[in-house]
């Protein structure tokens, strides 16, 4: 599942989208509410994607393979 803002793109691996524990964890760690938790599934709140502060907390809560934060202004460089 990938959602792009103007400056930031969020790519969540399909394999973890239905994981309710990961959904809750992502929602808990993100300081700018990019992640929601819709009925136990990972949800990306489109309107908040560009608020990303590149803090990596979502990556640290999962793994660089499971969640990618892409800098669309920098040739989609991935925050790793």
């Amino acid at each position, binding site marked *: 599942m990938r959602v792009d803002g103007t400056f930031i793109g969020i790519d969540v691996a399909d394999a973890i989208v239905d994981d309710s524990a990961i959904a809750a964890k992502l929602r808990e760690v993100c300081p*700018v509410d990019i992640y929601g938790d819709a009925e136990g599934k990972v949800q990306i709140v489109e309107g908040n994607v560009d*608020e990303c502060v590149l803090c990596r907390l979502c990556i640290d809560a999962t793994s660089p393979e499971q969640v990618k934060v892409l800098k669309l202004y920098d040739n989609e460089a991935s925050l790793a």
Partner: protein
Amino acid sequence: MRFFEYEAREIVKRAGIPVTDYGFTTDPQEAKEIAARIGSSTVIKSQVLSGGRMKAGGVKFADTPEEAEAHAKDILQLEINGHMPRGVLVDPKAEFEQEYYAGVVWDGTRKQPVMIFSPIGGIDIEQVAEEQPDKVGRRHFSNILPFGDFEAKEVIASTGVTGSALNKLTPILTKLAKLFVDNDMTLAEINPLARMADGSFIALDAHMDMENEARGRHKQLLKDLGVGDDETREAREPTAFELAGEAVDSQDHRGVAGNVTEFDGNLGLVIGAGGGSLTLFDAVRKYGGRPANYCEIGGNPSVSKAKGLAKLVLSKPGVDKIAVMMSIVSNTRVDIVARGVIAACLELGMDPAEKIAIFRIPGAWEEEGFKILEKYGVEYADRSVSLHEAASRAVEKIQGAAA
């Protein structure tokens, strides 16, 4: 924050400086009762935060309580420079021998209060300073160390006042200095300070301005005076543009973005950081620019908040370009502000490279910010470019566009 005259009088009175037996009221009938209590001729003064009261008919003399009532009724309905009166002050018509001036004002350059005294009162002190400079005494003093009587005495004596008047004026000026410091005033002025026939001194009028940021330290005083938390005491009502700015700023708790003041220029400003906004505003004016607004941005606002401010400024009629400039920032992220202002342009269908005259915000996360700006072709500057240089480039660009 400005105080009404009746409030300023109360502050003076609390400081132990003699005042007249005045009364404040919003009711003509009560004005009559106050005049009767005074028992002599009175002066009825409109309580508005505006100058020119006398000229506008907001100050009238009454020989009887009935006349005081009639004057109060008229004055309470009289708008002066767009302000309706808060009430009227009923004051004894003083018979004095001489008017003096005593004031303390904050000197922003020296970062110290300065005491000013003149044996010529009842008129603007600026006029006295221009026409008879030897009749104006000045002295800066510490707002940390206790103020000594000798300091007041020096200021008074420097104007040629001696003898009994010098001795009687000294404690009044000392109390005024203490009042100024204790209440975080930016202006504390008694004009006129009158010498009565018996040689005593009485404050006949007073003007007080308190540092806005200090309101929280003086809640009890403000409560005693009946000043509500919502009373901004601004010189004019906020414009629709300024109210919209307030709305942007209040949209979330993160940072400051949207505290705007409206002007009629063509260069929109998104500026701030540690006094940078004032410096930048002045710099834009110095280089011939015409600011469309003054504002503050800082404290790390969200992208949407920075975007909201930039959209507001860009949408203002007459704005051709915006300049995004701050001093060097430690906590406000350059990349977040860059995203905000570029998103504003894009959402309004504008080209960021054309609409943003210059972006000069060095500091936290500047490398990320500069990458964003490069992507959209926006001219940016790092810390090697001074605030003045950035301001002059913005002005050149907007003047070039207009030519």
